[in-house]
């Protein structure tokens, strides 16, 4: 979230267009009136200045003003608003906390923005069945808080303090710990969904019929709006251990990751930071970390106390064999906290070095880390733009940060070229254009790198079944029809 706030003062792509005057359009005027009746006047925003907050999500390079923003307070209100949109033939976009980094919650001009942040009740907590039921506006970290201290909710996007479960479901959010624990889709056991025509469907894991939960999670608001979310939680592991290892180069660190996982160790998280990221983090927290290494690995292990101890020792030994310059083991909670602080401080600190950057989200097979990181260095050098990479190395999910100055003519185009080249490199290495941020509006242009016409047509079939009129978040995930 801090990332988002420090970014992009000037849009590289402004999708603004002339606003339709709602007053001149009786259908839209009537729709706004209906929405006011459904949700109450206080929860309906039409004032242009007040709508400013909602013009972008976390990807500030895209902006759009909706016709109206509405903050429903209950599932029945969402259903009524969507039904009204459907009857008026007006598109709608759902939005949570707006931390998404792909423009998935970018409003549609003349459309209705349905903001779910008022729906933040935890509906039930059932630890015997390891299940929690929440409304979509509940922040991610509130779920773990609700089941503490015995249990936790594993998906932990870095925006977790604010980002909502509804948004996490839309994006199929991951986080640092998904190497061992999986992503949002692995934890959603049920959804109440308002379809684009206002129908409410109850999708449950284990119910007879198609697994519609699977495709709904990660559908970025294009198949409907989840108004109640059933989540599985897990018992908190008995103990946690952490080590940090410094390497000559990112490629050498990548090889160490492959060796560790190849040895049968499944860490809870493996984060890789390049030299710039490590330096920025150290400058921010001044804890005496070395800044001369090409890359640093942060490895978290969890399990029983004995397993942790043995795996920590084993992973440390492998790092040594892989020519680590230094291996630091965190012996206690304070040291663990310090090591994570370095990683967490890196991104906001980078924002101080240069305010404008674009965050990539490609995935590669873990074993290709070395090659791909070298290629990214080459792309960065060719275009003369700085690229700083942090990555969830265990599952090969890269977040290259492409820095540019929008004040320099041509530089934002160069940034787009660099981002595009990186995405292409990752797809060619057998990977994906997005691992956890989603396609949104931003990566629609890369979809054809990964998918053929026939593949995209199959996606359209699914979307058509859920939303034949194309009213739910049009223009996202797939090119607008």
């Amino acid at each position, binding site marked *: 979230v801090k990332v988002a706030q420090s970014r992009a003062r000037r849009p590289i792509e402004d999708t603004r267009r002339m606003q339709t005057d709602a007053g001149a359009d009786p259908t839209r005027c009537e729709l706004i009136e209906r929405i006011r009746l459904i949700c109450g006047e206080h929860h309906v925003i039409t004032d242009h200045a007040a709508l400013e907050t909602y013009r972008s999500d976390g990807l500030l390079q895209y902006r759009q003003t909706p016709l109206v923003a509405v903050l429903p307070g209950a599932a029945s209100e969402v259903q009524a608003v969507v039904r009204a949109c459907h009857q008026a033939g007006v598109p709608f976009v759902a939005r949570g906390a707006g931390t998404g980094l792909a423009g998935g919650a970018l409003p549609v001009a003349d459309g209705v923005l349905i903001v779910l942040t008022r729906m933040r009740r935890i509906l039930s907590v059932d630890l*015997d*069945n*390891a299940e929690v039921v929440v409304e979509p506006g509940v922040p991610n970290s509130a779920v773990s808080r609700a089941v503490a201290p*015995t*249990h936790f909710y594993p998906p932990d996007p870095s925006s977790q303090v604010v980002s909502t479960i509804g948004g996490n479901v839309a994006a199929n959010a991951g986080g640092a710990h*998904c190497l061992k624990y999986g*992503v949002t*889709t692995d934890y959603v056991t049920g959804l109440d969904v308002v379809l684009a025509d206002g*129908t*409410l*469907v109850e999708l449950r*894991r*284990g*119910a*007879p*019929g*198609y*697994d*519609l939960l*699977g*495709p709904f999670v*990660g559908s970025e608001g294009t198949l409907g709006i989840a108004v109640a979310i059933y989540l599985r939680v*897990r*018992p*908190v*592991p*008995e103990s946690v251990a952490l080590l940090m290892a410094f390497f000559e180069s990112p490629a050498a660190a990548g090889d160490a990751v*492959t060796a560790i*996982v190849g040895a049968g160790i*499944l860490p809870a998280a493996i984060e890789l930071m390049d030299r710039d990221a490590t330096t920025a983090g150290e400058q921010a927290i001044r804890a005496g970390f070395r800044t001369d290494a090409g890359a640093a690995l942060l490895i978290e292990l969890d*399990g*029983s106390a*004995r*397993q942790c101890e043995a795996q920590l020792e084993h992973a440390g030994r492998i790092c040594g064999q892989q020519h680590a310059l230094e291996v630091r083991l965190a012996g206690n909670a304070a040291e663990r906290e310090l090591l994570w602080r370095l990683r967490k401080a890196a991104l906001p600190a980078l924002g101080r070095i240069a305010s404008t950057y674009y965050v990539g989200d490609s*995935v*590669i*097979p873990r*074993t290709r880390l070395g090659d791909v990181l070298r290629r990214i260095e080459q792309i960065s050098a060719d275009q003369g733009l700085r690229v700083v990479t942090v990555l*969830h190395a265990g*599952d090969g*999910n890269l977040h290259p940060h492409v820095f540019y100055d929008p004040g320099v003519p041509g530089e934002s185009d160069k940034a787009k070229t660099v981002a595009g080249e990186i995405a292409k490199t990752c797809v060619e290495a*057998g990977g*994906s254009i*997005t*691992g*956890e*941020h989603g*396609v949104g509006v931003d*990566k629609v242009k890369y979809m054809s790198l990964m*998918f053929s016409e*026939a*593949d995209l047509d*199959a*996606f359209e*079939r*699914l*979307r*058509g*079944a859920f939303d034949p009129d194309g009213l739910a978040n049009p223009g996202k*995930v797939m090119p607008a029809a």
Partner: protein
Amino acid sequence: VPETITPSTFAEAAAALGGAAASPRPVRFSGSGTKLGWGGSPPRQALRIQTAGLARKVEHNAGDLSATFEAGASLSWIQSELAASGQMLALDPPIGADDRSPTLGGIFATADSGPLRHRYGAPRDLVLGMTIALSDGTIARTGGKVMKNVAGYDLARLLTGSFGTLGLILSVSVRLHPLLAGTVTALGASNDPGVLRDCVVRISREPLDLESLDIAWRGGQGGILARVGGLDAAERAERVIAIMLACGLRATEVRANDEPLWARQRTGQRSTDRAVVQVSARPSELDQVLRIAESCEGTVVGRGGLGISYVTVNVNRVVPLRSGLPQGSSAIVLDLPVSARGAVDPWAAQEDGPELALMRAVKHRFDPAGVCNPGIFVGGI
């Protein structure tokens, strides 16, 4: 003998399917045929597309713990290929009646699973991507082969468990795990369903990293089996035993040579002469499931920690079993004796609500000709 096509390439398979749709003529897909009796009555005069010719390893990236196999590859062959690298596909559904190994395509089409589901999940939790043939003759890919991927819709999960009603699975990319090593199993017994329930719930609430947590019930006697692997397996098994004793289970022991126990659990999921009903309930409702199963003279094996039970009963007990289950649970009939097929709706009467309407819309979009395994799925899809 039905007319059968055995394509040896994806293009041949897609062409055969496309040709049938153009006729139009219904098509049945089959692998090694271990679960052909599952689902509703199959269409008559159907063309059979058999996947035996699509049984290759496409790739195995040991360092990435991922692999892609064609749909007709048998699970036993896949496991032997992977074991050479110390890895496995963490799926252990039961084998067929005459010891035939199920195929990858069949396992994913039916979403079948075994005791490893406790830790590693069902097929939908292990799928990374898929290649499918649709009834218009096109071939589509969905997902990929990397661990994290949110590009496009997750059609691989949609196809998993769809009983071949949306298209033909041609290949599946899966995530792999290191082979189980040094497992032991903690066992305990009780004839009180309430005691078993309390014990399962208590074990589930502890961070014990179990490989499997199963229950068994037969003739008024029940038991819990907890499989533990890894470095300190013996210690953690003792912790399970301590919970079992505290809950009042008896005859507790830790067994080292534990594979035969698990083979028996898997076998308990299949039957040739009785009905096998897959019940999904809450783990905390286990006692109710066991009681109604007992009153229907059923035997049970299942995933205690997940609330999934396979109840084997005589065919005439399917209806009373269903009506006695806890509210909100589901009961799908898997195996039925040949003589009883058609007499029992394996999906139970589905309410004609908006969920079923949505499923019909999905079916119609993917298979507008309606030729893919018509009539065998929920609501006659």
